[in-house]
């Protein structure tokens, strides 16, 4: 693999005499893709420089925990690089066929500072990270659909987007090898209790602390754009909430109101649309976007078409989702009932 990486980088650098991969190491922590870091030495005349890059590629066929589209991810990264509105580590090159690197793979800058998750794991006082994170999500949600590539699916309306997500709960359940009354209950409840709409915006799709890198200057950089889409911005708040409840700390539930105030300030959205109840609703709704791919891979696993301990681990994710969603609906319904009793 190191030779392949050196040869691929060489295709993009005709100003370098020699490129050598002096270290190559698979990285733990990439749940959806195979990740590796490569230490590269460039030699040009008397000058020698070194840097580290990250390779992000598809796992071998039949071993993916989640199937996502590398072409889509590269398209989003290119668009965001041009916009320069969201802090992301520069994406360098893309092997769109896998002919050079053995699998479709993106080469990105390595961020030396580590992830926000690693930082939060090591401290007791989270400082201003909750409001900084809220503002980061708000920055993402400042991107309007007309700023994004035409090749990305553009929903015709807010109702179309939300109804489509609710329908996904049905479709995933109907296709699955498991009949799941919890999913059917969730879908029925979501359809009966839709919140007030917001304008459609860019959504990251998998916002979580492990996907926020911190550079040596302490600035946030947002990575892993494979689930990016155009949707209701609160889908991201909901996904952050459910993911961070499973793998904390959850900087939203720590103190929701300052988090939401910072987010509303960054986006200009109002309190009627962005509040604890609507975040709760989208915590349930948004789970299906990644839940669908997890469920599909587990079905393939059940039928002997897929394998891997990482995939088997996702049985826990689905059952965790059941538990959290049932509790969330109970809480949200109680709030609605209390509101109804008062009016």
């Amino acid at each position: 693999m190191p030779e392949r990486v050196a040869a691929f980088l060489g295709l993009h650098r005709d100003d370098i005499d020699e490129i050598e991969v002096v270290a190559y190491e698979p990285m733990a922590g990439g749940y959806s893709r195979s990740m590796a870091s490569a230490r590269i030495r460039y030699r040009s005349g008397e000058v020698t420089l070194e840097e580290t890059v990250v390779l992000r590629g598809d796992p071998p066929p039949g071993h993916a925990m989640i199937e996502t589209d590398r072409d889509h991810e590269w398209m989003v990264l290119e668009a965001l690089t041009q916009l320069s509105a969201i802090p992301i580590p520069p994406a360098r090159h893309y092997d769109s066929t896998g002919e050079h690197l053995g699998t479709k793979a993106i080469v990105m800058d390595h961020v030396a500072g580590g992830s926000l998750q690693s930082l939060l794991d090591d401290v007791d006082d989270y400082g201003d990270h909750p409001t900084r994170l809220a503002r980061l999500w708000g920055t993402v949600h400042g991107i309007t659909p007309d700023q994004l590539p035409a090749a990305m699916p553009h929903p015709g309306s807010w109702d179309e987007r939300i109804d489509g997500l609710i329908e996904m709960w049905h479709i995933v359940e109907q296709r699955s090898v498991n009949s799941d009354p919890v999913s059917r209950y969730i879908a029925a409840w979501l359809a009966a209790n839709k919140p007030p709409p917001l304008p459609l915006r860019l959504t990251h799709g998998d916002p979580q602390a492990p996907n926020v890198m911190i550079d040596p200057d302490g600035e946030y950089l947002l990575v892993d754009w494979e689930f990016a889409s155009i949707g209701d911005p609160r889908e991201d708040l909901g996904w952050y909430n459910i993911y961070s409840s499973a793998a904390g700390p959850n900087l939203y539930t720590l103190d929701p109101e300052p988090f939401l105030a910072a987010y509303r300030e960054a986006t200009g959205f109002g309190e009627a649309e962005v509040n604890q109840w609507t975040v709760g609703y989208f915590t349930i709704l948004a789970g299906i976007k990644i839940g669908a791919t997890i469920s599909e891979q587990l079905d393939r696993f059940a039928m002997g078409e897929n394998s891997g301990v990482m995939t088997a681990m996702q049985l826990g994710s689905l059952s965790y989702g059941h538990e959290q969603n049932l509790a969330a609906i109970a809480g949200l319904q109680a709030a609605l009932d209390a509101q109804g009793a008062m009016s």
Partner: protein
Amino acid sequence: MIVRPTTSRLLRDVRHELVETIVPEVTSATAQVALEQIDIILEQCAVRADNEIEWMAEEVAEIDGFVGRVVDATHDEPTTAALQAARHEASGSLALESMCDDYNRMSEALSCAIEACMGDPERAALLAEAIGILQARRSDREVDVRANWRLVGRG
């Protein structure tokens, strides 16, 4: 057949061997993460081996009784059809694959019953009962099966 040590006892012994003998010899970070995940899955298998057939049988019986009352109260066509299918096609076998099929068919009947009750104030009590089944029979047992599950190796 030799039934003891039970499947769960065997699996937990494998876990012990992995943790005490294999893991200390492994230095690769990715292999350590994989071993930690394998340990979690083995414990989940142990819990399922001890309980899953009994739990499915209990839930099938409880759903059958509940959905029968929903059909009596609502005469909802999809619920009636799903319950009839679940009863008619029930294998009555304790073999795991047959039991999974019976469980799936009865689960479909419960889904239809929930949809028939959603949003109708007169059926609120039935809906609450259905949610109780989802919680006590399904979700709480999934928590037991999840065992020592956690998102290993993230970040």
